[in-house]
C-alpha cells in the first residue's frame, strides 16, 4: 500500500453485488487484489481466490513449542534442579505434568497466534496505515485492483467495474 502503487477501486453498496462482481470482473481476465468489507462475507475468499490461510500450521508449531517448553520447565525444576517428593510419586511423575503441558500448549498457541496474525496483517502497534477507502469500515464494499499487476489496461478495468455494478470507480 505504498503511495507509488496504482490502484483502481470499485465501490459497491451491497455485499451481494460485490460477491457477484468479483466473479464477473475475474471472468474478464482481471486479477482482483482484494475486497474490503465491514463484515465477513460468506464465499468471498473463494471468489477472490485467496490462498488458504497458513495460521493453522503456525498454531500447530506454537502448540508443539509450548508443550516442549512446559515439559522442559517442569522437568528441570522438579527433577534436576530441586527434586521434590510429592505424594510419594517418582520425581518424574508424568501424569501430573500433563495439565502443565496442556496449559503451556494453550498459552503459547494463543499468544503466538495473535502475534502472528497481527504481524501478517500489518496491525502492529503504531502502524498508521489507513484503509484504501475509509467507508469500508462503515457501509461500503470496495474491490481493489492493482493496475501494475494486470495486463488489462486501466480504462478496460474501469469499464469492467462499472459494468459489474460499481456505484463509483476511484483511482488511488
Amino acid at each position: 500500500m505504498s503511495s507509488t502503487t496504482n490502484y483502481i477501486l470499485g465501490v459497491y453498496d451491497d455485499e451481494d453485488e460485490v460477491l457477484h462482481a468479483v466473479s464477473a470482473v475475474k471472468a474478464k481476465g482481471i486479477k482482483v487484489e482484494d475486497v474490503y468489507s465491514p463484515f465477513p462475507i460468506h464465499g468471498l475468499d473463494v471468489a477472490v481466490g485467496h490462498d488458504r490461510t497458513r495460521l493453522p500450521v503456525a498454531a500447530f508449531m506454537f502448540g508443539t513449542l509450548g508443550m516442549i517448553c512446559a515439559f522442559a520447565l517442569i522437568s528441570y525444576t522438579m527433577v534436576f534442579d530441586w527434586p521434590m517428593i510429592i505424594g510419594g510419586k517418582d520425581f518424574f511423575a508424568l501424569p501430573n505434568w500433563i495439565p502443565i503441558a496442556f496449559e503451556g500448549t494453550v498459552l503459547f498457541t494463543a499468544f503466538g497466534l495473535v502475534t502472528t496474525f497481527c504481524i501478517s496483517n500489518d496491525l502492529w502497534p503504531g502502524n498508521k496505515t489507513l484503509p484504501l477507502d475509509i467507508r469500508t469500515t462503515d457501509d461500503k464494499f470496495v474491490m481493489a485492483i492493482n493496475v501494475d499487476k494486470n495486463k488489462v489496461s486501466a480504462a478496460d478495468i474501469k469499464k469492467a467495474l462499472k459494468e459489474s455494478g460499481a456505484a463509483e470507480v476511484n483511482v488511488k
Partner: protein
Amino acid sequence: MAGHSHFSPANVEEHFEFSSEGKKRIIYAFIAGLAALALGIYLLSKGESGGHEVANAGHEAVKAGHEAATAGHEAATEHVSGGAVSHQASAEEHYDWTNRIWANVWLNAVFFTGIAVVGMFFVSLQYLTKSGWSSVMKRVPEAFPKFLYITLPILIAVFLFKGDVIFHWMHHGVTEVGSENYDKIIAGKSGYLNKSFFLIRLVVFGGLWILLWKMLRKKSLEEDLNGGTEYFTQLVRIGTAFIVVFGASSSIFAWDWVMSIDTHWFSTMFGWYMFSSWHVTTYAVIVLAILYLKDKGLMAYVNENHLHDLGKFMFAFSIFWTYVWFEQFLLIYYANLPEETIYFIERWEGHNKIYKTSEILMVLLNFLFPFLVLMTRDAKRTRLFLKIAAFMIIVGHYIDFYQMIMPGVVGKHGGYGLVEFGMVTVFAAAFIYVISDELTKASLIAKNHPFLLEALHHDI
C-alpha cells in the same frame, strides 16, 4: 444473506429404501454373529467349567487385598482394603462360566442404549439451541432412539434375572447384618442401590426417554405434512424437556448401570465420563450413517460443510472424552487413596494384566487417533478420513465400555473371544436393521423445517 438468491428450499421429499438385498445382508450378519456367539459359548463351557478356579480364588483375593493395602501408605485406610478383600472373595465364589455371556449382553445393551438415546439428545440439543445447520441431517439421529425399544427391555430383563452376576451389591446377603457376605460399605449404600429403586429409575427415565422421543417424532412428521412455525416452537419445548430429563438421567444411569458394578468404588466424574463416551460414539455413528446414505446417492444436499461440522464434533468430543477420562485418572493417581486406586490397579496390573493392552489401545484409538487424523480442515471434509476416524472411534469406545464393565463383572475370566465378537455383531446388526427400517418411515429431509434454507446455505 450472501448471494445464492437463486437457491430455493428443497421442496422434494427423499426416501430411503431399505431393499430386500440390504435386509438379507444384515440378517446374514446377524446370523453370523449368532453362530460365532454359539460357538464362543460352547468353547467357554468346555474351557472354564473346572473347579480349580474357585479353589485358588481365596489365595488370589488375599493377594489383591495385599496389593491394595500396599498401594496406599496410610495405616488408617486398612479397614477399607479389608472391604476390597471381601469384594474380591465373594466375586470369585459366585463365578460361573456363563457370567461372561451376561456381562457381554449388559455391555452391548448399555453401549447401544447410549447410541440410541444420544441420537435423541442430539436432535433435542439442536432444537434447544435453535441451530440451523443440522436441519438437513436431523432425520438420521432422529431415527436412533427406536433401538431403545430393544435395549431397554434387555437391560430390565438382565437386571431382573441375572442382576447378581453383574452387580456386587445384588449378591445374596451383602446388606444383611450377620450374613457371611455382609458388607458394611454396601449396606451403607443400600438406600440408593436396591433392587426396587434401581428398577423404578430404569423404568421411569427409560419410559420418559421413549415418551419424549415419540412426541418429538410425531410433531416432526406432522411438520412435514402441514408446515408452519408452531411445530418448531413445540419441538423446541419437547427438546428442552428432554435435555432436562437427560441431564439427570444420563448421570444416574452411569452410576446405576456401570459405576455400581464396582460397588465399593466411586467417582464424581463418572456421569460425565460415560456420557462423553456415549456422545462421541453417536457422532461417529451419525457420520457413518450419513456417508452410507450419500454413497447410495441420497442426501446430496448434505455437503462437505455439514460433514465438516460433524467432523469437528467428533474431534472436539474425542478430546472432551480424553479430558474427562484423564482427569478422573489424574485425581485418583494424585490422591493415591487405596479405595480409589483399586479401580485402575484392576485395569492396569490386576487380573493377570489381561486388561492392560486394551486400556492402552483404548486411549490410542479414542484420543491420539482422532486427534491426529481429524486435526486438519481437509481431513474433516474428506469422506474417507471421516469414515476411518468414525469407525475407529466406535471401536475405541466399545473397548472403553468393555474396560468399564468387564473387570468388575468377570475379573480375570475376561478376554476377547468369539463371545465378545459374536455379541457385538448381533447387536450391531440389530441396530442397523432397526434404524434402517425407521429411516424409511420419514422423508430424509425435513422439508418444512423453518431453518432448512439456512442449512442449505451452510458455508464454513
